[in-house]
């Protein structure tokens, strides 16, 4: 080596190239340490959208899962919170039956394939964040009297990454990740052993990037609406993998036939009917890796035949350069969603406030369960917010309702996912890191329940 040094005469050019490229590389590696702005500017109908940026090293900022210990979530004055069920296995969504029984869907996604070295890293990150829990693939039934659990049974077992549940008459529909299956249900039944009947296939493997299939029956029971998430962040698995995905399906309950009710929604979940107007509403997770404040996740009414941008554009006509070829025809028709929830909060639960057990300021609006960010500094989400509605449209800023999912060190005690209103009108929250179902109710005097916090 020393010998080589003496003999070699590197040109000035070569030396210059070394210095330049080392400098450029280190600069680029350091230059991506940026922080997100005030999420408040991205809540509501007109979010501030910064210009997009592309990373050399995309930020990963996850909250380590630590569990609750003796803690409980925090609620504002006038509300109380208690655990309805603990020790569950990754509870993701909830469904309340007419007799008040609560179905808890314990589920996790199928194993993700490895296409690129990045997918290996992503697997590690998810494990660290507590998202790699075993997939219980079952539905647990909780029967309670005024929030005090009385009975807990395995309601349905051996499912395939289930998420959505809907009951129409005596037909109980479960949206597995790859199919809607119908089971016979009798009032008061605590366990179903009868085999299911497949109504229709849904887009499942082999990639199944966004695996959750939200489910909602039409008020007359003739149709089922299914939220089918995209098969990628931004089309990196090829546009062919996105066939009939990133859409809300309308499935005919009698025949199982389907049509695309609305498209261009990256990961639509939380399908709900807005009680005043009877319109379909949904929440959606928007795309990653173009900045801490892009793209805001949203809550929106869903128009029949509407296109909401993904993957070609966001919030109307803001183009995403990561998809090629572009589709100017679709972009021209892209609808901007109604209400931004701010970036990377990951809304995965929606409940239209309908009940009588909550204080008056929580009637007439939507609760949104924000699972929390994994690629933004500072963290965003990790709470349940309330969006007030008036005349069938959001009418004000989102208010924090249930917090405390993060501790002072930004570790995750839990993460809220699916929401539901129980028969008495209390808010139920599935917590897939705390493995708990929380019940938030009015802290009116004379309540037999001790406030949780």
């Amino acid at each position, binding site marked *: 080596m020393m010998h080589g*040094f003496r003999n*070699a005469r590197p040109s000035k050019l070569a030396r210059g*190239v*070394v210095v330049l490229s080392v400098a450029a590389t280190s600069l680029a590696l350091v230059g991506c340490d940026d922080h997100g702005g005030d999420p408040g500017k991205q809540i509501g109908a007109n979010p501030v959208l910064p210009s997009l940026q592309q990373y050399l090293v995309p930020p990963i900022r996850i909250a380590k899962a630590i569990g609750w210990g003796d803690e409980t979530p925090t609620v504002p004055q006038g509300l109380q919170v208690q655990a309805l069920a603990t020790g569950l296995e990754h509870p993701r969504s909830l469904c309340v039956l007419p007799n008040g029984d609560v179905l808890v869907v314990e589920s996790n996604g199928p194993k993700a394939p490895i296409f*690129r*070295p990045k997918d290996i890293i992503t697997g590690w990150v998810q494990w660290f964040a507590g998202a790699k829990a075993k997939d219980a693939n079952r539905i647990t039934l909780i029967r309670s009297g005024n929030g005090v659990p009385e009975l807990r049974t395995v309601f349905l077992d051996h499912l395939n990454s289930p998420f959505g549940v809907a009951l129409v008459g005596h037909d109980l529909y479960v949206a597995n990740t790859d199919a809607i299956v119908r089971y016979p249900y009798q009032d008061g039944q605590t366990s179903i052993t009868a085999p299911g009947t497949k109504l229709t296939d849904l887009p499942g493997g082999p990639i199944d990037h966004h695996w959750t299939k939200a489910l909602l029956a039409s008020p007359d029971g003739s149709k089922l609406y299914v939220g089918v998430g995209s098969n990628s962040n931004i089309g*990196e*698995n090829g546009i062919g993998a996105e066939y009939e995905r990133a859409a809300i399906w309308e499935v005919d309950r009698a025949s199982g036939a389907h049509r695309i009710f609305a498209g261009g929604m990256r990961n639509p979940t939380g399908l709900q009917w807005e009680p005043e107007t009877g319109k379909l509403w949904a929440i959606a997770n928007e795309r990653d890796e173009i900045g801490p404040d892009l793209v805001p996740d949203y809550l929106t009414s869903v128009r029949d035949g509407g296109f909401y941008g993904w993957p070609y554009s966001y919030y109307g006509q803001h183009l995403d350069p*990561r998809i*090629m070829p572009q589709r100017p025809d679709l972009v021209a028709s892209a609808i901007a969603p109604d209400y931004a929830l701010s970036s990377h909060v990951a809304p995965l639960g929606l409940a239209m406030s309908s009940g009588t057990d909550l204080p008056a300021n929580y009637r007439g609006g939507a609760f949104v369960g924000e699972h929390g960010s994994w690629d933004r500094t500072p963290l965003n989400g990790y709470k349940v917010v309330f969006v007030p509605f008036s005349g069938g449209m959001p009418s004000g800023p989102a208010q924090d309702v249930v917090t405390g999912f993060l501790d002072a060190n930004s570790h995750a005690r839990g993460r809220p996912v699916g929401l539901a209103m129980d028969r008495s009108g209390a808010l139920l929250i599935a917590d897939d890191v705390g493995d708990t179902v929380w019940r938030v109710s009015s802290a009116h005097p004379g309540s037999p329940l001790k406030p949780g916090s």
Partner: protein
Amino acid sequence: MKHAVITETTFNTQSTGRPRRGPIHNVLVSFSAAYFTGALVTDLAYWHVPDVLWERFSIWLIVAGLVMAGLAAIAYVFDFADNRPIERPAWPRVVGYAIAVLLSLANAFVHSRDGYTAVVPLGLTLSALVVIVLLLTAWVGMALANRHRVGG
């Protein structure tokens, strides 16, 4: 093509009376150079027809090249310790190769982006730059080796 050049300048066994093996790190360097060059080819294919398969080929080729480069660095230490004949004009070659590896490291990150911009324009540019740097390195190395041989 460039890897052929490197090999040629590499395996010039010096006649010391007993047969000696060439330094191992050079073989690994050749492999990594071939992988990096392959990534340029698959990048060009993706630029022509943006099918994700080409982009996946590229990122695996770049990562394979980086792994080989890492092994080459380890082998270099062993070769040095083992007193194997390491070519005289080592400095410009080490530096040129280091630049190519650093650029490839950055390129691996760019290629890990999602969608079209994982390749066009920055990924493709970096892949091309890496091959240019490798070619220049080989050319400079060869020129210096020849001069060294001639000039004693």
